[in-house]
């Protein structure tokens, strides 16, 4: 039978604050275990949580960017469950009055814009990290509470996705929005951004949703897509055999690329949510909302559309430019100085990105500023250096951070437009290649190209190519 897959995603993003949600412990990743803990995040009796204002504002910012309705009144709830990574035996989260509800995010799949609805956006605290020793027969697990209490944003979508392309675009778009709004560093390898998928199948053409299966332990976007493909097949096979799909939680096994029922979650969850009495409610007035709103930059999709429209750049070029906010910002910085969009786009998406990859540079700490690249493009336009030499200058700029003019002077790279000098080189090249001249006279026109190349080589690429072309032609026709 033909089925349609229906996917919803739950996303967790660690917020980019320096301190935890309810205490002043550091959120730094990779420190020695259990050194960023205090009585509050260890859940000692009698301690009181105090909300980190920045974390709340980051959550608010993300909720606004995802077009959510912002509740004027919001509060927090206790979600009770016993698990060793949760020191208080409850997680402070939101259930009854989520910060943002009924939002949406536009994704772009195969040049078509699709709107995915967002059910809610809320703020909660992160749990600790469990480590399962690999030694055979180990009857214990280990806990690191450094992560416990780190502010976590949860974004719950509606089951609005129908294929892996849409899911991939949703994840990429959401990641970009969180990066553009600077609320999370979204480092998946450090667990700052995680996805859980709800997957169900229904007969093609049917409106009724099937029982959904939740998949956890998805460590990368690739895993999410693989898990959806696997689940689609598994559920379809099951349905074809006349079986029913249980509503359950399954764990993704990254090594064997399959999902398996999660034993510990077999029993129904009973979180007994109730309002958190240790935290005061938060009232968001219009003034505060406006203050946060103005901190939201132009979002990736809007920026892409503007770049295509205003700068007449291709879909592909703009996709590359907006991939990282810092690159799009760099591009706009250049454009303000010299109006050469295509040239800057090429320099940024080809040369700059290549240098960043080759030299393993941090894209957020680029060694050059937009005005330096703008200066380089101006120098090329003036004809001071050829585009080949420009690549060399650019590489040197990346390495040293120096201005292009300084590099050109230091290395004497300025283009030679001295007619007498170029002629002298041409005479030398012609006299060294009598056979080529013969060929030319017999009608082999590409002999000209060869001679021009030789002249450029002699001058280490510094001769003005246009002049070389004209002068060589003149010389051998004479």
């Amino acid at each position, binding site marked *: 039978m033909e089925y349609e897959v229906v996917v919803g995603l739950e996303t967790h993003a660690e917020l980019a604050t320096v*301190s935890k949600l309810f205490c*002043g*412990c550091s959120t730094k990743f990779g420190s020695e275990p*259990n050194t960023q803990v*205090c009585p509050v995040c260890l859940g000692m009796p009698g301690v009181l949580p105090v909300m980190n204002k920045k974390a709340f504002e980051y959550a608010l910012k993300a909720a606004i960017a995802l077009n959510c309705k912002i509740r004027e009144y919001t509060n927090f709830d206790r979600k009770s469950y016993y698990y*060793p990574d949760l020191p208080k035996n409850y997680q402070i989260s939101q259930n009854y009055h989520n910060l943002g509800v009924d939002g949406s995010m536009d994704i772009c799949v195969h040049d078509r814009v699709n709107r995915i609805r967002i059910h809610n956006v809320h703020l909660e605290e992160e749990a600790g990290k469990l480590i399962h020793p690999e030694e055979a027969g180990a009857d214990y697990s*280990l806990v690191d509470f450094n992560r416990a209490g780190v502010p976590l944003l949860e974004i719950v979508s509606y089951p609005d996705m129908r294929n892996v392309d849409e899911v991939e675009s949703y994840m990429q778009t959401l990641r970009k929005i969180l990066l553009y709004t600077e609320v999370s560093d979204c480092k998946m390898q450090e667990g700052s951004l995680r996805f859980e998928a709800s997957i169900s199948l229904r007969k093609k053409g049917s409106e009724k949703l099937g029982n959904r299966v939740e998949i956890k332990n998805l460590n990368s976007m690739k895993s999410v897509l693989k898990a959806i493909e696997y689940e689609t097949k598994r559920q379809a096979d099951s349905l074809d055999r006349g079986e029913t799909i249980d509503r359950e939680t399954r764990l993704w096994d990254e090594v064997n690329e399959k999902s398996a029922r999660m034993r510990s979650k077999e029993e129904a969850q009973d979180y*007994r949510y109730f309002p*958190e009495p240790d935290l005061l409610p938060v009232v968001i007035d219009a003034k505060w909302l406006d203050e946060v709103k103005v901190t939201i930059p132009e979002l990736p999709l809007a920026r892409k559309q503007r770049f295509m429209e205003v700068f007449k750049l291709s879909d592909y070029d703009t996709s590359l430019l907006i991939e990282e906010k810092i690159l799009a910002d760099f591009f706009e910085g250049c454009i303000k100085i010299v109006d050469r969009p295509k040239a800057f786009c090429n320099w940024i998406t080809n040369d700059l990105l290549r240098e960043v990859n080759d030299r393993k540079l941090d894209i957020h700490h680029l060694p050059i500023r937009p005005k330096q690249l703008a200066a380089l493009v101006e120098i090329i336009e003036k004809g001071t250096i050829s585009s080949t030499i420009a690549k060399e200058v650019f590489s040197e700029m990346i390495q040293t951070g120096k201005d292009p003019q300084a590099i050109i002077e230091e290395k004497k790279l300025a283009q030679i437009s001295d007619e007498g000098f170029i002629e002298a080189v041409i005479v030398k090249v012609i006299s060294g290649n009598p056979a080529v001249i013969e060929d030319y006279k017999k009608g082999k026109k590409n002999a000209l190209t060869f001679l021009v190349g030789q002249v450029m080589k002699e001058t280490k690429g510094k001769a003005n190519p246009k002049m070389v072309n004209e002068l060589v032609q003149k010389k051998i026709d004479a």
Partner: protein
Amino acid sequence: MKIGKKDIEYIAHLSRIELSETEKETFVSQLSDIISYIEKLNRLNTESVKPMSCAINATNVFREDILTSSLSLEEAQLNAPAANGVFFKVPKVIE
């Protein structure tokens, strides 16, 4: 609301508490008494009373995003029933 033995067993399980049969009997009657006592509140008309989650009439209490000192590893582990090097040690978690 009637509290039965099943309810007590369910709550005990959620709280990871082991109860003997006699204890279960005791709690069935004690919890039933408590609930019936509180049920008196149902007689009140609360239609115009807003739900309250906090005893203080205040909102928007925040701290700035500033680091304060954490405990040392030794201090952090003082109350731990078991530790293993830099970690807290817990019974094996099966997933």
